[in-house]
């Protein structure tokens, strides 16, 4: 085997490993992107959520109620 052929094999080997590395980086970044998307979805879901409550309403019959709440007069 000549010296030139060894160099060609060596170059092919280096290119192969370099290619694998690039693919791995692509996969890693895809995973990171997916994780980020899920996180964003979860965050937006938590921005607004319903509060559990029970309520009963009453009509206030006593006229003394009126003067003391000026902030909600029409």
């Amino acid at each position, binding site marked *: 085997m000549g010296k030139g052929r060894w160099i060609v094999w060596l170059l092919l080997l280096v290119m192969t490993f370099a290619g694998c590395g690039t693919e791995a980086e692509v996969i890693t970044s895809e995973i990171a992107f997916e994780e980020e998307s899920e996180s964003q979805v979860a965050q937006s879901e*938590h*921005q*607004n*959520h*319903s*509060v*559990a*409550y*029970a*309520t*009963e*309403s*009453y*009509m*206030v*019959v*006593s006229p*003394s*109620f*009126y003067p*003391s*709440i000026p*902030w*909600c*007069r*029409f």
Partner: protein
Amino acid sequence: MDLPFLNENTMLLPSKYWMSDESRGKEITYQELCQNRFDDDFFETNDLLLIPQITPNLGPKPTVGDFQYDSQAKQYELQLYSNDTKSRAEAQGVFLHVVEVEKGLMDENINEILRITQVDTGYTYTVVSYDHVSNTVSLLKLTQTAELGD
């Protein structure tokens, strides 16, 4: 309980008797309401929000709508409906909404606020502070921040 806008003798008529022929004699005092429905056991796991509402007349029945929490703004939002018909024929209606929530829902130490919107009239109120009365009842103090013209 000594509340600025309610006293123990204030008469209340439950919503199920509004517009009802059976309403006579169904009124209860605010004191009776607290004693009968909201005893010490109740307050071990619940807080009460007392929300007054005035409607333009006595006819419409106001209701409480959605109650949501915006975690980003750290703000609770409660919607009220006055079912206002824009009629000015009768005297104003005064109502009290008693809202039962999980105990500690609004922790004054982290400065969360409750924004109340009277949806169908455009009135918006924002709570600027609230007090704990008798270690049980949360009283809301509201400030009107927006209104629509007649």
